[in-house]
């Protein structure tokens, strides 16, 4: 795909003094590999820990220490590449990227420059209103993370903790294929979802497991690309959107005043809601990459790549397509269900052998709605898939109506138990005895002659009658049956 050719939708254009502009966005997403130990050392890669406790002499760059690669991290990168439908390179090379910073004890980061482990791939991203776009992935490479500096412990000093130093990162570089903050946000959300499905990154942005460098430029719609600025280390999807919008307006302001954009690294200040130049990094741009003499080229066995490919789980796009095809769900409902593997699995447990749409309605509207409200997840749901399935059975069989089902759901949530038993012991079974319903209807009609007159002039009042009948039957009648019967008796069409 030719990235330069794609023009933003008109709704995403930004109005300037000299006409419309569009935003061009490319992303470098850093995703921490889900692994027990570090990329080149046997120290723990677990988040947190006491300062410098998860550090080996390799991570602290003590003289004479040599890196030895973690083969699981390599496989995780391959797995991610396959999940992004990308080319896997059987030979890749580690290089040293040289710069000085207190949280980088080696004075260089081991990364991959000319020959990354994963080449071109593609991510399909869904936008509002059922629209879908393809974002090109240029490459994915493995590299070491740096340590962490703390600046709030002392007025004149910075504190450095190397626990994160040497953890394996996957840097996923996109093509400049995004045209709005919403597209960039949707792309990162999708990447996160795919990696969580694959089990290659936990996607925990609060803990820094995923961070993005955002490249932003602006142009008149369809014109050649302009000069870009790179916003470093954005650690939340919301901030990323804000940073993009701010940066685009800043650049448009400069260009419309007749200025030019300097290619530079910037920082997003979430408190002030603005980006600012990181002057100190300007010199650092000459990284003097060269192949790391401590590491041989990384060679992958094509049979192992095929094995990993065969072991991939069903990914979100495929799962959603299957939910639409085999359960008859809307694309939207299917997308809601596949956000997490656990929620999709829960739905399938409920829907097994039952009506797919009805099951989806109960899982999404009642269960997910309630879980969200109470800050719970599918894993900690008080109502199990088996219980909810039992409830769906009772609705499908016509044993209870939808309104009673909500009451039963409430009981399942607060007290637990078996749906069929709850309905039985509490006498909630739907009244299907037509004679009983008819009796209730007749009663309401006979004691409310004024309302009977009124409803003839205003048929929408029928709802009041239905409500009254439902009340006298303890909510156990089928509202549709009641409504039909009332219409007949009151001669309303």
């Amino acid at each position, binding site marked *: 795909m030719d990235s330069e050719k794609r023009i933003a939708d008109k709704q995403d254009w930004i109005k300037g003094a000299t006409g419309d502009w569009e935003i061009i966005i490319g992303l470098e997403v850093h995703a921490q590999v889900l692994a027990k130990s570090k990329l080149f050392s*046997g120290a723990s890669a677990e988040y947190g820990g006491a300062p410098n406790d998860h550090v080996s002499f390799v991570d602290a760059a003590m003289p004479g220490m040599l890196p030895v690669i973690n083969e699981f991290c390599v496989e995780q990168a391959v797995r991610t590449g396959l999940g992004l439908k990308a080319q896997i390179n059987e030979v890749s090379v580690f290089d040293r990227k040289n710069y000085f910073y207190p949280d980088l004890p080696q004075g260089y980061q081991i990364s991959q420059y000319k020959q990354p482990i994963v080449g071109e791939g593609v991510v399909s991203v869904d936008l509002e209103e059922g629209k879908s776009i393809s974002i090109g992935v240029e490459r994915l490479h493995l590299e070491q993370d740096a340590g962490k500096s703390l600046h709030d412990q002392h007025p004149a000093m910075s504190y450095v903790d190397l626990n994160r130093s040497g953890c394996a990162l996957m840097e996923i570089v996109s093509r400049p294929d995004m045209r709005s903050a919403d597209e960039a946000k949707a792309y990162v959300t999708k990447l996160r979802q795919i990696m969580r499905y694959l089990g290659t990154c936990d996607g925990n942005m609060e803990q820094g497991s995923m961070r993005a460098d955002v490249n932003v430029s602006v142009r008149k719609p369809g014109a050649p690309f302009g000069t870009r600025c790179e916003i470093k280390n954005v650690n939340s999807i919301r901030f990323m959107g804000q940073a993009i919008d701010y940066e685009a307006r800043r650049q448009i302001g400069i260009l419309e005043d007749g200025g030019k954009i300097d290619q530079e690294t910037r920082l997003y200040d979430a408190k002030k809601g603005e980006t600012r130049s990181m002057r*100190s990094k300007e010199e650092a741009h000459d990284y003097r990459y060269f192949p790391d003499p401590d590491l041989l080229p990384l060679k992958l066995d094509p049979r192992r790549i095929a094995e990993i490919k065969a072991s991939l789980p069903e990914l979100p796009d495929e799962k959603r397509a299957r939910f639409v095809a085999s359960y008859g769900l809307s694309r939207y409902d299917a997308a809601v269900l596949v956000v997490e593997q656990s929620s999709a699995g829960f739905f399938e447990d409920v829907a097994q052998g039952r009506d797919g749409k009805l099951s989806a309605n109960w899982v999404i509207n009642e269960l997910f709605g309630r879980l969200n409200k109470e800050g719970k997840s599918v894993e900690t749901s008080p109502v199990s898939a088996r219980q909810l399935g039992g409830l769906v059975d009772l609705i499908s069989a016509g044993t209870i109506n939808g309104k009673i089902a909500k009451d039963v759901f409430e009981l399942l949530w607060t007290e637990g138990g078996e749906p069929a038993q709850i309905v039985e012991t509490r006498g909630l079974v739907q009244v299907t005895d037509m004679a009983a319903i008819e009796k209730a209807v007749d009663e309401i009609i006979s004691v409310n002659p004024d309302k009977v007159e009124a409803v003839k002039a205003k048929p929408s009042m029928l709802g009041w009658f239905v409500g009254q009948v439902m009340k006298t039957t303890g909510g156990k009648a089928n509202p549709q049956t009641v409504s039909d019967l009332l219409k007949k008796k009151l001669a309303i069409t």
Partner: protein
Amino acid sequence: MSVDDKTVRRVAKLARIKVEEKDVPRLAAELNVILAFVEQLNEVNVDGIAPLTSVVAAEMKKRKDVVTDGHYAKAIVANTQSEDQFFIVPRVVE
């Protein structure tokens, strides 16, 4: 390829090596001699030959994903200024 005084200053700065101004011309000359020596290699025709990465045919050594190291923070920070097992450096903040 030849190195001028400006390049010497830039390389020194990137490598965080303090170079006195009076030493710059001498270093440029020395670097040029070294580079000229290495450039003899350009005379060899290497068309179609893959770069040599090891003199013996060796595979990259790999480890299993097991935690086998770490948990000696005291030793990590032993050689420098530290507090609560953090390294302490002059304040660096953007």
